[in-house]
Each structure stands twice: as structure tokens, then as C-alpha cells.
């Protein structure tokens, strides 16, 4: 009888530890998929940094620090993504795909958002 009781206790402890491990693993997965906010400065007629590695759902925030108007345009489709950004203005964008972008006013200003972060 005592042997059975010990066995039962060991099973309970093992199951508890197993559940704890699963819970920890789930928590890690949630943390790795949590959206990240990336900041891009528009400075001296350049996007800084000009390339960022992101995951779907991440947020990009561009801030114009130049005294000249800029905006964000999809280089491939030429879709205008942002309003005109004057000095101090910000624009946020939730990533759902790779994006090569440029300033619609100054097309030599180019940036790249690539889906490579796990």
C-alpha cells in the first residue's frame, strides 16, 4: 500500500514538473513573438538605419528630424504610405510584408524593411 502511495506521489510530482516546463516554454514562445517597435530617424536626407530586420506585426516609427518635408512611399508600387512629414512629425506602420521604401519627394533616399527576425 505504501509502495502504491509513493508511486502515486511520484507521478503527481512528475506531472507537475512537466506542466511547469510546458508553461515556461509557452511563455518563451509568446515573448519571442511579441511585436517590437523599431525607430527610424529621417536625418540629413537619409533613413537611419536604412535597413532593419523585423517580424510580421512589428511596428516601425519614422521621425523626421530634418527641416525639410519627407514622406514614405512603397518603392515597388509607388503607393504613398505616410502623410507629408514635417520636422518633428512621426509615422507608424505595422509590418505585414517586406518593404523597399523611399522618400516620395527625394527618391535618392531609400530604406529597406526585411522579414528576417524570428
Amino acid at each position: 500500500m505504501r509502495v502504491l502511495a509513493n508511486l502515486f506521489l511520484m507521478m503527481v510530482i512528475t506531472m507537475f514538473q512537466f506542466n511547469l516546463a510546458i508553461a515556461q516554454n509557452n511563455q518563451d514562445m509568446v515573448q519571442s513573438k511579441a511585436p517590437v517597435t523599431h525607430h527610424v530617424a529621417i536625418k540629413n536626407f537619409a533613413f537611419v538605419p536604412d535597413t532593419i530586420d523585423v517580424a510580421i506585426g512589428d511596428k516601425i516609427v519614422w521621425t523626421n528630424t530634418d527641416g525639410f518635408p519627407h514622406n514614405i512611399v512603397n518603392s515597388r508600387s509607388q503607393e504613398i504610405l505616410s502623410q507629408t512629414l514635417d520636422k518633428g512629425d512621426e509615422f507608424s506602420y505595422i509590418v505585414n510584408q517586406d518593404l523597399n521604401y523611399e522618400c516620395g519627394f527625394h527618391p535618392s533616399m531609400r530604406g529597406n524593411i526585411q522579414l528576417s527576425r524570428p
Partner: protein
Amino acid sequence: MYNNKPYIKLFIVTSLCIATFLASASNDQESESTELSDANIAAIVVGANKIDISAGHIALKHSDNEQVKKFAKLMVVDHQSVLDAAVELVTRLGVVPENTELVDTLSEQSQQHEATLKTLSGEAFDKAYIDHEVAYHQAVIDVIEKQLIPAANNAELKALLESVLPAFKAHLDHSLMIQQKLS
């Protein structure tokens, strides 16, 4: 059919004159950059921006090419921003712009260039305007880097010159992109 060739030739000569004059002015005074006062620098900055704004207005009126018009509009907006910032700064500093030979020559050549532009149309106009913008921005960048920034005494004026350089370089890159497409 209107023959634009003589005007194109005249334009090319004028553009080369601007580039050569600005380059030689830059080289001559590279070692004597302190000769330029802040008042001289203010006059050059104001004059150079007014010239490009004026050319931009002409392009907006005469060009039918969407890319060229978009670029011209940008030149008007961006150079007006630089002009406003420069005027605000020199007013606050109490600096009265003082013309130099460079400003007088730029102004004279700008008038010739505008007179030429007004006689052109279509592709000839677009090519003349954009070719001049390429040469003009290359020359102005050279003068700012080699002559004006080293000569500026006031820290705020020097900072203004340094802050407008990226804009002028972006304009040069943009004009080169359009030049390539036009050719």
C-alpha cells in the same frame, strides 16, 4: 518645326561657364577662405537659393514632363525652406548680406540661363533645365564644402551651411536620376 539646337548649344556653354566659374572661385579662395565674411556668405546663400527657386518656377510653367515638374516643385519648396532659414538667421544675427563677385556673376548667368530656357519647349526644355540643375548643384555643393563652410565665422551660420549640404546632395542625386531617364 522649331529648331532648338542653337539654344541647347548656348545652354551647354552657359552651364559650363557656371561650373567653371564656381570651381575656379572655389580653388582660388580655398587657401584664402577667411577673406569671405559672414555677410558675403549670407549673400551667396540667399542668391544661390533664389536662382534655383526662379528656375523651378519657369520649369513648372514650361515643362509637360511630370517628373521634371515634380522635381521643379521640390526645388521651389526646398530652396525656399533654405532661404527662409538663412534670412531668419542673418536677421537674428544682425548680418546684412553683402554681395561679392560670385553673387553678381551667378545672378548674371542665371538671367542668361532663364532667357534661354524661356525659348525652349518639350524635351529640349526638360533636358536644358535638368542638365543645368545637375551642373548647378554640383558647383554649389563644391563651393559650400570648400569655400563657405571653412570661411564661416559664426557657429550658427556654419551649422546652417552644414545642415543644407545633404539637401543639395539629394537634389543632385535626384537630378542625375532624371537626367539619365531623359537621355
